[in-house]
């Protein structure tokens, strides 16, 4: 006897516990197996690029905060670097070091949240997530100390940062650096050898090397597929060329590898922060720009290695105080290009795991 089955459309999202915000996937399932998937974007499209055209360069900084809201510092940094490139602004040495420290702290936050929600999607009852959040709160404290905000920091300025480090920051940072590595090891140990985690993530959602390059994936997703590309090494910005760190690369491109790459990247971030905290020079933290800031006309593309991938800003300036066009190369959006290829053939339960392992931030996907 031959059973006849009929495919049906299962709608996941936009409000769904594990779409990390308001993402929607129209999945065609045959029983539990996915035969087709169509991602639907735009539920958080706030028109940041259009709003930016009506704001002065400085007013755009808060907008960039709200793009990738778990990595606000990184967005600030990418935007500031782009405008500095456009206007040829020099950044004082101390500010560069502060930027590196902040950016790496923020990367750890982003990865902690990414890993935590990855395990949530896998079905643990919030416990790893809660553990990651205790680690995240420590960093939040540090970032709050310098910027006064817990989540959207709005800290970077053109030519430096908005304020110097408070005197209690460096001791607190050193304490954090002592506490964090054992904690990362704990997260790793807790979950690395868990048979269920292995069974759910090993060889699941494989993104091959060729596919990853062809689909313009970047960040941990690309590196988990075996491409050793990190903008901090490939094209060092800020003062990253002075630090000694490694780029973790995995070879299989499955969910487990993406998770492991993130864990390893957190360790490397700790290494960078240690070196930066040791070598931080004294001096000015900002090279002020005029109040009525008008960069020269021109076109510039600036980028950093954000926590989700290559985060780039493309600015077209017509010489006025407002940008003519501002475009964001959003790694979260572009990493989703290969989603269909990664998901087809897997089961409904795997959708969450694979989607979680890409680790997107909806604010950045839709902007």
């Amino acid at each position, binding site marked *: 006897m031959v059973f006849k089955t009929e495919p049906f459309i299962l709608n996941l999202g936009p409000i769904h516990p594990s779409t990390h915000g308001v993402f929607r996937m129209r999945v065609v399932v045959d029983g539990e197996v996915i035969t087709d998937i169509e991602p639907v974007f735009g539920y958080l499209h706030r028109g940041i690029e259009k709003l930016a055209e009506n704001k002065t360069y400085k007013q755009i900084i808060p907008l960039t905060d709200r793009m990738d809201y778990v990595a606000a510092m990184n967005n600030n940094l990418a935007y500031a670097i782009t405008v500095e490139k456009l206007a040829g602004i020099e950044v004082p040495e101390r500010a560069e070091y502060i930027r590196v420290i902040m950016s790496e702290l923020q990367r750890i936050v982003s990865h902690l949240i990414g890993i935590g929600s990855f395990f949530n999607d*896998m079905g643990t009852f919030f416990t790893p997530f*809660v553990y990651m959040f205790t680690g995240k709160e420590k960093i939040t404290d540090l970032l709050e100390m310098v910027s006064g905000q817990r989540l959207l920091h709005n800290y970077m300025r053109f030519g430096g940062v908005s304020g110097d480090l408070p005197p209690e920051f460096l001791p607190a940072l050193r304490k954090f650096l002592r506490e964090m590595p054992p904690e990362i090891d704990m997260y790793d140990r807790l979950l690395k050898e868990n048979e*269920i985690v292995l069974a759910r993530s*090993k060889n699941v959602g494989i993104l091959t090397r060729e596919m990853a390059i062809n689909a313009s994936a970047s960040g941990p997703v690309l590196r988990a597929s075996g491409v050793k590309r990190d903008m901090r090494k490939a094209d060092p910005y800020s003062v990253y060329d002075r630090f000694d760190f490694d780029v973790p*690369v995995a070879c299989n491109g499955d969910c487990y590898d993406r998770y492991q790459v993130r864990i390893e990247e957190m360790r490397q971030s700790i290494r960078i922060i240690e070196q930066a905290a040791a070598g931080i020079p004294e001096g000015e933290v900002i090279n002020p720009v005029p109040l009525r800031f008008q960069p020269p006309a021109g076109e510039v593309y600036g980028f950093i290695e954000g926590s989700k991938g290559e985060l780039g800003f493309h600015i077209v300036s017509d010489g006025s105080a407002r940008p003519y066009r501002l475009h964001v190369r959003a790694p979260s959006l572009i990493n989703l290009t290969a989603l269909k290829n990664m998901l087809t053939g897997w089961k*409904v*339960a795997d959708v969450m795991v694979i989607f979680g392992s890409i680790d997107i931030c909806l604010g950045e996907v839709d902007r």
Partner: protein
Amino acid sequence: MTETLLITVSARPETSSEFWLHLLLFGLGIIIVLLTSVMLFIWLERRLIGRFQLRPGPNRAGPFGLLQPLADVIKVLTKEDIIPNRADKIIFWVAPVVSLAPVILILAVVPIADSVLLADLNIGVLYVIAISSIVSLGVFMAGWASYNKYSMISAMRSVAQLVSYEMPLILSMAGVVILAGSLSLNDIVKAQSIPFIILQPAGFFVFFIASLAEINRTPFDLLEAESELVAGYNIEYSGMKFATFYLAEYCEAVVFSALAATLFFGGWQGPWLPPIIWLLLKTVLVFSFIVWIRATLPRLRIDQVMNFAWKFLLPLAILNLLITGLSVSLWPEAPLWITGIASLVLLVVYVLFWSKFFKPGGKTVAV
């Protein structure tokens, strides 16, 4: 005083009127005690999970937050009762009852002291197995009647899971029955001069895992898979009907804990304390273990759940039954610990063998 009352009520009824009185009072007693103690168990679970997640858990409503479940009950019972327009109304109504009633019925054969039970059936174990599988029917009805795709998938999963895990559950109970020489739960408890967990570690292992699947707890909580199916079969239920499901779920957990305590931990037997306290303590112990698992482990995928049942649990249960049967029939006068050691060796060898065989391991991240 309660104890004497219980004993007068429950001493084996001789006359017809005594029988009815016994049935009425004891039945009522079971329902009241179960429903109130389930609230305690809900509180226990939330507090315990809170502890596992580095926080105190609910502690504002009443002393130690003990009244928290009461508040939940009051709130849920007074909420609006929604029946979806396209639901199958009658089945939608009946489903919660079908899933709660059998759970309470199971307690009829669980002894709370020597011969203190509602009905000392000489086919007690058979009765438990027969009744407990009705619960899944209720789940299936709910999922099917709700006219919701998520609940539909959940219903399908529930049936698949039931069919797979009933088998190892029964076979693991058969080992106990062989050792005790009776199907009556009262006799099984009395036969446990040594708790059967020592004589039947492999049997307990299979029983515990299979009952986790029976009561839909992590890592087999595919029916309610929060991160995939949003809320599973009870997604469309609100108000009192949802409360019934919620209650049924916890009742099942409590009842199966009590069953595990009865079958493997010597039930009400224990020194010094009154028997009912011993039973309660053992139930709490097993229940806490279930909560521990819930707070720690991720969820399995549906095909992995099936594989696990048929390829791992079923052979182990059969082997365990074989060893127990052989030791009892071939060498009846052998000391009991021989069976225990044989079962333990079987468990260890089997688990090691399979974990070697099924290892989903691979390369780690290269730096």
